[in-house]
């Protein structure tokens, strides 16, 4: 695997990272690098459709095979048409759940990506409601407590 290191600012939200258009060779500089290209904005990647993309925190491990782990954050886009094989957020027993959508002819089912979980077949005549298609997963390698998630100003009292 080739890894290109670059430094990332500390402020995640709205922060942009400068992108060099080409590799920087030692010696004769490329005239293209006389100026920076438009900076990378992480939002542009995550929110191709800003109106219809929602972020969600995942709980559970039924999709670890697909790279979605407990406590990860996923971006879910409602504007995309779910296809056979799409990872989706679907409504199951009145709750939102992440699974892989499978379609074959008239049949539709939901597949977890972890051998410990069973495939979910829908009952006859059951209409599957899909919230949206999962487009990205954000996984942090740090403990949640240590992560730089801004604290809320005043913790709200919950009944």
């Amino acid at each position, binding site marked *: 695997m080739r890894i290109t290191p670059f430094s990332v600012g500390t*402020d995640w*939200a709205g922060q942009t990272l400068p992108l060099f258009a080409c590799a920087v060779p030692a010696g004769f500089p490329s005239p293209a690098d006389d100026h920076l290209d438009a900076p990378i904005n992480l939002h542009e990647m995550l929110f191709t*459709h*800003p*109106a*219809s993309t*929602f*972020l*969600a*925190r*995942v*709980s*559970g*491990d*039924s*999709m670890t095979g697909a790279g*979605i782990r*407990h406590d990860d*954050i*996923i971006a*879910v886009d*409602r*504007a995309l048409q779910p296809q056979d094989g799409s990872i989706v*957020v679907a*409504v199951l027993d*009145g*709750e*939102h*759940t*992440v*699974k892989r959508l499978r379609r074959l002819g008239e049949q539709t089912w939901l597949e977890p990506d972890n051998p410990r979980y069973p495939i979910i077949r829908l009952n006859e005549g059951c209409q599957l*409601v899909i*919230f949206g298609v999962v487009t990205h997963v954000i996984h942090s390698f740090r403990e949640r407590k240590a992560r730089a*998630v*801004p*604290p*809320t*100003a*005043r*913790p*709200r*009292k919950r*009944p």
Partner: protein
Amino acid sequence: MIALVDCNNFYVSCERVFQPQLETQPVVVLSNNDGCLISRSDEAKALGFAMGEPYHLARPRLQQHGVRVFSSNYALYGDMSRRVLRVLSDFTPEVDVYSIDEAFLNLDGLQYCAGAGLDAYAQAIRRTVLAHVGIPTAVGVAPTKTLAKLANRLARRQPPAQRVLVLATEEQRWAALSQTPIADVWGIGRRYAPKLEAAGIRTAADLVGAPESWVRRHLGGVVGVRLWQELRGQPCLDFDPAELAAEPGQPAPGRHSVTCTRSFGQPQRSLVALSEAVATFTSQAAEKLRRHGLAAHVLTVLLGTDKHAPGSGPPTHTAVVALPTATSDTGELIGVALQRLRQLARPGTAYHRAGVTLSGLEPAGQAQLSMFGHSAEQLQQRQQLMARLDALNARFGRGTVRHAATGLGDTAWRGRRNMMSALYTTDWQELWAVRS
């Protein structure tokens, strides 16, 4: 042609997007401080719950029917409203935002929706908002705003999938006008409806049939004639497209004042609590000013007593201060507001609400230096301080850094909202949760 897109039971619909188990249940959302019912699902309407019904009176019946009750979650509704508007702005460059859940769309000059295509276009608007944001809407399309509003009202009565009505032809317009009771016409109001009915005008069609001179005499002069013309299909109301993504630092067009008013959770008598409330509202209003790059010349403090208590004098008291120089400095504004509050508040009186209005707005940075005020250097320092304050609060959450005068922690005046759902889209700690 103008389309009015109206979100069905908007607050309830927002809650349902994130809690699918609510989809078929009766649901209501309460106003600030859990005062009264302000949004009801169709199921709750069918059970006979009325708009504006006080919560404490409706409570036993709500429990009896197992209705799900929510405190209002304006951070969520605001975010969902922005999303809806963003989708709408893909359909036309001219969106005139009427309220948090309603917007007029100018469809003129869009060739793909001319003639018979109009109905398909309106259907597409409805379908797309539902698919992309999850909010059901009704769409009324007509030559004027008043007729679009009327069409929307009729569309709303249809089953959810058919909530679109286009009034393109004379026949369609007449059918809609004769189906609409005069009291339901936008702009008629409670005062005129009985008067018109007494004169034999029962429907919108009856009013359109009346001569202009009669309308001018009996329906408030020019205003009435305008309404009459709008119903006849002649546009008289301005179309005022919103700046959807106003650049920060650009004054919002047409903004004359910024107001922050709220009812208390419980009536407040102590000057300490009132001061905290007024300081908080002043901070919020000042922050809004700075967001729009504005400064205020005039500050008004408002205190309200019980509106429903008989014989206790006028329910609202205000004090107005003209500021020596226009400012958006929170500290300075709080100082002035609290000074006025001390003069305004009568000891022992129970106040039910308070508020602050900043008016006489001008773009920031044009202020004339005052002889006894801050020097130019001091002003610059204060401005930097405010910019830092806003940046910190934008990053770490509202009210993270604030003036001590706004009080510490939760006090009674901050109000009740015990049944509020999570801030699904605006707060990392309460982010929408999905099972895997």
